[in-house]
């Protein structure tokens, strides 16, 4: 399979159209609907599979995901603060983006794995939802510290009830409660159309990415280097965690992809409210201008190859 997946061609079309200043744009309510469908589909799919396995076994994995999300943020922060010489608030905010996850990257990985028949643990959407959270809280603490008054209650409310988490967890619960037979009736919309919806979504992502590339020119090489270096490092961490948890090959590759991915919805919204002095243009330029395209175009196959290596090395 040397040809590029068509969904990635949609992404590239969006980037090209954006860079050429085409009039093309998805109406914002369509974009919202498309992202809702993706989040629900991801949740539903995981929920159906969860119905078939005991919940207790997942607890260590959930804990590992929480620790990993927090740890990646804590590693990224000093790199940005000392080596990158960013302001404290900016370093903390960018670090939180990289400790959290991107649903879009996950969805592309699902499509990539699917077209190659690579199996992975069905409860990955649960880890996806869990991984969104710790980085946000760590990021806010890094920026504000414990000393100053941080309205953690309000922050937690916004974080746990953010759009992404409500839809993924809601989808998980519906899929879990309804089971495979129950969900069969809504399958055409959520599962059969998944790649088509993803293609539309990626078209818009391409347009958004194009607007961020301009910002990169202003913020320089360090951000570009960080935007590629950090996901590579995170993927190695994700691979190691996946191996320790005893995940399948596909599961290790997926966890590496999740670790490498970088938020651009939940974290920017939380940071804008809780760390207002952080410049959102910086983190979005890195996250969307560099890391997202890198991950979907180059990263996912790379992280899969990494997982194959790790499995061959340690499971032989």
């Amino acid at each position, binding site marked *: 399979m040397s040809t590029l997946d068509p969904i990635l061609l949609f992404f590239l079309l969006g980037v090209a159209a954006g860079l050429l200043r085409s009039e093309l*744009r*998805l109406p*914002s309510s369509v*974009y919202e609907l498309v992202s809702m469908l993706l989040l629900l589909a991801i949740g539903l799919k995981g929920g159906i599979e969860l119905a078939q396995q005991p919940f207790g076994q997942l607890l260590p994995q959930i804990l590992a995901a929480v620790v990993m999300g927090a740890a990646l943020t804590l590693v990224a922060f000093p790199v940005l603060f000392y080596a990158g010489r960013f302001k404290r608030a900016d370093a903390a905010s960018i670090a939180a983006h990289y400790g959290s996850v991107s649903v879009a990257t996950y969805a592309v990985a699902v499509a990539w794995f699917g077209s190659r028949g690579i199996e992975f643990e069905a409860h990955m959407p649960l880890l996806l939802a869990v991984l969104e959270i710790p980085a946000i809280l760590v990021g806010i603490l890094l920026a504000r510290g414990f000393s100053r008054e941080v309205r953690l209650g309000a922050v937690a409310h916004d974080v746990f009830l953010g759009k992404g988490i409500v839809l993924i967890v809601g989808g998980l619960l519906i899929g879990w409660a309804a089971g495979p037979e129950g969900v069969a009736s809504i399958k055409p919309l959520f599962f059969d159309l998944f790649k088509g919806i993803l293609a539309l979504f990626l078209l*818009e992502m391409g*347009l*958004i990415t194009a*607007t961020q590339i301009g910002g990169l020119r202003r913020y320089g090489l360090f951000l570009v280097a960080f935007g590629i270096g950090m996901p590579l490092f995170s993927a190695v961490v994700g691979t190691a965690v996946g191996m320790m948890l005893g995940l399948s090959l596909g599961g290790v590759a997926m966890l590496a992809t999740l670790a490498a991915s970088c938020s*651009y*919805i939940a974290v*920017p*919204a939380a940071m*804008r*409210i809780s760390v*207002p*002095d952080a410049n*959102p243009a910086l983190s*979005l330029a890195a996250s969307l201008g560099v890391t997202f395209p890198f991950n979907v175009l180059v990263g996912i196959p790379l992280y899969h190859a990494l997982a194959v290596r790790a499995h061959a090395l340690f499971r032989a």
Partner: protein
Amino acid sequence: MSFPVRKLLTIVTEAAIESLLVRDLERLGAQGYTVSEARGKGSRGVRNADWDATRNVRIEVVCDAPTADRIAAHLQARYYDDYGMILFVSDITVLRAEKF
């Protein structure tokens, strides 16, 4: 006949902080407010409302002069440094003064 005069406060700012703002407005004595989605360009560049991070809102509040002063002072102190925000006040006539 003469109509009672009130202040119309118009705030254009980032959609990200809408929930914080309306909480503040109510606390500072606004009897109500109207929120609409907005797009445009200002000192912080184009805000084209393509997706969450580039979305703006326009919040309008009709209130008496002291409340308008209070809100304006609070917003300026609390939000002007960190957020894209403009705020302007105009005199308007209303029909039912007791509502505002």
